[in-house]
């Protein structure tokens, strides 16, 4: 009975993994195929791999390198600005007796529930009127309006976990407020910062809906540039697959780096209660 059950669970996990991995596998395989191999039926699992698609999308006439650069500028800009603003804001919300603190918490969550399509037109009009269409600052500021509340909301609980006596001890030890924040508090929320950075960066990197409306020919992130390879006459499947693999790379790299940080952050968390035992 028990073995049957664990077998069923294993099977379910397997199905889940296959369903999840399949599209990625499809993209990766096709990115190394020629157009002929892609269209072959039945699909070929063994074929002569070629870098032709990569060569084309990276160095060809329609190179996506400027778009990758745009995506980086937008994502890093959004992440850096978000964190600079979110860390002090979350700390303040966690610590200070601000009037309307509860209301602020609700407001922050409410912004996450708003359907983006509902506000995309006003955003478009605002950006057009101030001449920020198709600019980095325009896209970053719009992304900020979503990422900032989310980042604050995520960070607050990390700050709240640190006993207030810790800060009082630092004050008695001669540390000012900023030194306390920098030397005592921030190191203890490193894990939280890592998690938040990953979420904010990935959200900005993967964003499509706002980018499609607010970007143009100057600032064109990878998610939008992919459409260069889809036209009325034909779809360049191999090149499209190559672009999507390139677009996935930073996500994977960041995930691997962040994983270590997150684990480290959790260990710090485990020690955190030590002082209160």
């Amino acid at each position, binding site marked *: 009975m028990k073995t049957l059950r664990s077998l069923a669970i294993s099977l379910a996990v397997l199905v889940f993994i296959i369903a999840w991995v399949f599209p990625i596998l499809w993209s990766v395989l096709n990115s190394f195929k020629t157009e002929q191999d892609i269209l072959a039926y039945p699909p070929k699992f063994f074929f002569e791999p070629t870098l032709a698609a990569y060569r084309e999308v990276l160095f060809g006439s329609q190179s996506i390198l400027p778009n990758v650069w745009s995506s980086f500028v937008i994502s890093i800009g959004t992440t850096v600005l978000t964190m600079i603003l979110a860390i002090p804001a979350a700390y303040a919300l966690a610590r200070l007796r601000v009037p309307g603190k509860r209301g602020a918490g609700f407001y922050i969550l409410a912004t996450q529930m708003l359907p983006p399509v509902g506000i995309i037109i006003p955003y478009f009009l605002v950006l057009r009127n101030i001449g920020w269409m198709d600019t980095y600052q325009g896209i970053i500021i719009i992304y900020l309006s979503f990422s900032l509340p989310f980042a604050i909301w995520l960070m607050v609980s990390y700050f709240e976990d640190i*006993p207030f*006596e*810790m800060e*009082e*001890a*630092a*004050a*008695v*030890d*001669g*540390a*000012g407020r900023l*030194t306390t924040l920098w*030397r*005592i508090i921030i*190191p*203890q929320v*490193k894990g939280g910062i890592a998690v938040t950075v990953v979420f904010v960066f990935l959200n900005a990197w993967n964003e499509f809906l706002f980018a499609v409306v607010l970007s143009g020919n100057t600032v064109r992130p990878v998610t939008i540039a992919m459409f260069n390879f889809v036209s009325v006459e034909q779809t360049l499947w191999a090149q499209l697959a190559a672009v999507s693999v390139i677009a996935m790379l930073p996500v994977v790299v960041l995930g691997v780096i962040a994983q270590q940080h997150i684990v480290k952050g959790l260990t*710090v968390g*485990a*020690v*955190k209660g*030590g*002082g*209160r*035992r």
Partner: protein
Amino acid sequence: MTARGHVKVEKVAKLHGQVAALKGVDFDIRPGEFFALLGPSGSGKSTTLRLLAGLDKPTRGRILFDGKDVTALDAQHRDVAMVFQSYALYPHMTVRQNIAFPLEMAKTPKTEMAERVEDAARKVSIQHLLDRRPGQLSGGQQQRCALARAIVRRSGLFLLDEPLSNLDAKLRLETRAELKKLQRSLGVTAVYVTHDQEEALTLADRMAVFMEGEIRQIGSPAEVFARPNSIDIAGFIGSPPMNLMKARLDNGTPVLAGRPLPLRVKQQAGEIVVGVRPSAITIGEEGMPARVDLVENLGDNAIFDLSFDGGLVRARGPDPLAFAEGQQVAISFDAKDIHLFDAASGHRLEAA
């Protein structure tokens, strides 16, 4: 140049909105003194310590360290050492970094810092743990680490907020004795908050007993124990607490359960309370007839619960087997062991 560590608190009050956490206290702590702030929770003792540390500011009154008014000074600039109840060690730093932190904040040169950290760690016997993190230490070791972080400052004033309350009973007794030795050898002034009267009695040179946001009595443990100035203090200090029995005055003589007691007070008549410590009650053949209700055997002594026509009393006797439960006995006490209090005001009445 006088010794460092003189503390003067003048009419200090702390209000939280309309609620008075501290109604106005005055006291003076001499350099090198071990001064306990004793009281039940919510009595204002911790508030007082926080005001001394500069973590809170008083609503009224002044605080002076070595003659200097520090009332408006932030904790950061007061140069006092404090041990928190939770120890408040920094979990992301090693023990060495924890102890060095106050020195770092004071911009102490590196070589001097290293020496002083080692020195402080040696004083509390944790020099072998310097490279561990607080989470890898036992409760007792964490407590020592917190102490070392306080010692390393070489501040004249030590503030201790129930530093032993998180230790188990055996460790608490050991650490208590060590703490006293440490304070003596460092020659610092210590202000020690506790709700445990035994801790205050054993550690303190003098103590202030807090109740309801006020100091009710200040004195050496011996003084407070021997001459509690009110019914509340009498009932709070001593374990088991003093027996308090209702009585009345008849021409200046206290009358307890119909029997005149062998002493007189100035006041002529009124309701009073007679107090006798359990250790001052003699159980024997002479005196007021009583019955043994319960014997609590403590090994080398015992506490006897007795009932007599004046009510219930508890007595401490040397021999647990001297009297059995249900036995008819007699109780007596000396005139010098009797404390008298006015029933209405609670104040102590002096024998004439």
